[in-house]
């Protein structure tokens, strides 16, 4: 039922249910409610919504004040503004003060498309990951988001939800018996030769790459790390032990994001050769996703190449 749905529309539907069930839930927005698909909720539930205007810093601290009063605020803005722009407000008034605020940053990385380099958060995971206590969740599709929502609502503490706004590139978690755990990574495809650790839109690229690799006789294991922090080290290390090499695929700078998280995890638990897909420490630029996926070498073809490279490194190290 969600195949053609935009993630923001599904998010709005889930939040509407939550608002109706819990009068303490309050949505805050900094003049992007229309863009984030939640404007109808602002019209329908004036007591449980607040548009602070173009003032993200103030939004974060007002949310912290509301949380200290027993409310459960969700703040909404683009990923770039939720992270780098208001890093200190998130760090001090939300995380350090231990306030139960959920932070929704939309259009992460190249998903910002025609808004261009100024709006492309390729560092937001790095910013958020270095804040103690921050949980970072990046849903892959609407089904996963829907399954996650009750656990997000039940969790006491800050969560950064790094959310694609529009129709996700593909659906991977539609199975009715899919059991979601906010703190467990999901095995999407089993393989013995190489592990593709992927998050967000890169899951689709990784699955495509796994198909191409399979035709070449290489069986790739694909693991979706929807929760980048705290990382499910057990699943990450277990797969590393099984395959002996990996490629981390993310819509983010290769510094500070999932790649760093996986590398840190494996350095501790099971060191293996790794390659990294993502922006190679450069700024972003304007363009549609297919152009940017290719230009930044974040497409399936690039993942195949990195997988073949890391397999060679694995053989050399044997």
């Amino acid at each position, binding site marked *: 039922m969600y195949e053609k749905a935009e993630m923001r529309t599904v998010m709005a539907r889930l939040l509407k249910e939550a608002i109706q069930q819990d009068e303490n839930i309050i949505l805050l927005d900094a003049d992007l409610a229309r863009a984030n698909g939640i404007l109808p909720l602002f019209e329908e539930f004036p*007591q449980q919504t*607040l548009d*602070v*205007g173009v*003032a993200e*810093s*103030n939004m974060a*601290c*007002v*949310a*912290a*004040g*509301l*949380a*200290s*009063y*027993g*409310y459960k605020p969700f703040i909404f803005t683009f990923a770039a503004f939720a992270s780098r722009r208001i890093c*200190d*407000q998130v760090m*001090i*008034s939300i995380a*350090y*003060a*231990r306030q139960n605020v959920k932070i929704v940053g939309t259009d992460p990385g190249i998903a910002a498309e025609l808004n261009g380099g100024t709006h492309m958060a390729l560092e937001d995971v790095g910013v958020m990951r270095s804040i103690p206590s921050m949980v970072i969740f990046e849903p892959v599709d609407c089904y996963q988001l829907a399954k996650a929502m009750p656990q997000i609502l039940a969790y006491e503490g800050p969560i950064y939800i790094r959310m694609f706004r529009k129709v996700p590139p593909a659906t991977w978690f539609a199975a009715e018996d899919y059991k979601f755990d906010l703190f467990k990574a999901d095995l999407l495809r089993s393989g013995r030769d190489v592990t593709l650790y992927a998050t967000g839109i890169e899951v689709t690229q990784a699955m495509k790459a796994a198909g191409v690799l399979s035709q070449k006789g290489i069986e790739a294991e694909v693991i979706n790390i929807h929760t980048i922090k705290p990382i499910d080290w057990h699943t990450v290390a277990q797969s590393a032990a099984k395959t002996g090499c990996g490629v981390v695929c993310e819509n983010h700078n290769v510094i500070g994001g999932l790649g760093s998280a996986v590398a840190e995890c494996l350095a501790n638990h099971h060191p293996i050769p790794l390659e990294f897909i993502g922006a190679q420490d450069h700024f972003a630029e304007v363009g549609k996703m297919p152009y940017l996926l290719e230009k930044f070498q974040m497409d399936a073809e690039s993942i195949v190449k990195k997988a073949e490279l890391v397999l060679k490194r694995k053989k050399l190290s044997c």
Partner: protein
Amino acid sequence: MEGKRKAELVKKCRRIRYLTMDEIGKLGVGHVGGCLSAIDALVVLYYNHMRIDPQNPRMSNRDRFVLSKGHAGPALYAILADKGFFPLSWLDTLNRGGTRLPSHADMNQTPGVDMTTGSLGQGFSCAVGMAIGSKRRKDNAFIYTMIGDGETDEGIIWEAAMLAGNQKLGNLIAFTDYNKMQLDGETRVINDLEPLSDKWRAFGWETEEVDGHDVEAIDAAICRAKQQLQRPSMIILHTIKGKGVSFIEEMWRNNHNITLSPEQHKKTLEELREVTLDV
């Protein structure tokens, strides 16, 4: 205000100054100037106005106070200890490893502290959030907050000021500790705030200016602010940085964060001890 009550509050201000200076003096360093300038307003607020219960610091419908100029934490701790939120002996632990009294106010460490502050500007914005929460909950609480004059330079102050004005937060009462100095020098030289009242008024706030060391004037201003339910109130306190200790007042150009030798500590207490401790 009755003369007797005024005398009691004046004495209480001196006792809080004594406790604050003893707290910082025992450590030997601290934000002395901005603690001393803020004390009279904090005393009037905590001893004459706030609906709080030291036995139940998280009472749900209590009034809140957010010390947005979080570096004046030691002055707030002296008041909270004096009121019984925690033992007076805690004051001797200020800023020492493992203390529950850190230099900047921390709601998760200190009973009676309503918001974690220290990154300037943020506490004020949090207080606006609390006032919106209180108003929507209709719990008839007042949200008080104090900012510094240097802190007023922060952009988030004006983001929050605009929202508070537009939301008509009559339950929000703020103070500016206008001691005319910020760390690097005089506020009028670095980034002049004037005309300060006009700025707040333009943002939809009820504004008045009072002598920040006159407890009667501060009390009257708070009473008027509590009657103003349609707009947030800003009470601008004209204060002296380091007020109450002569040699620190004389250092008004440079008493923001200073060391105190054991001799200076002793001298400070002697000056403040001249007024009785058994208020």
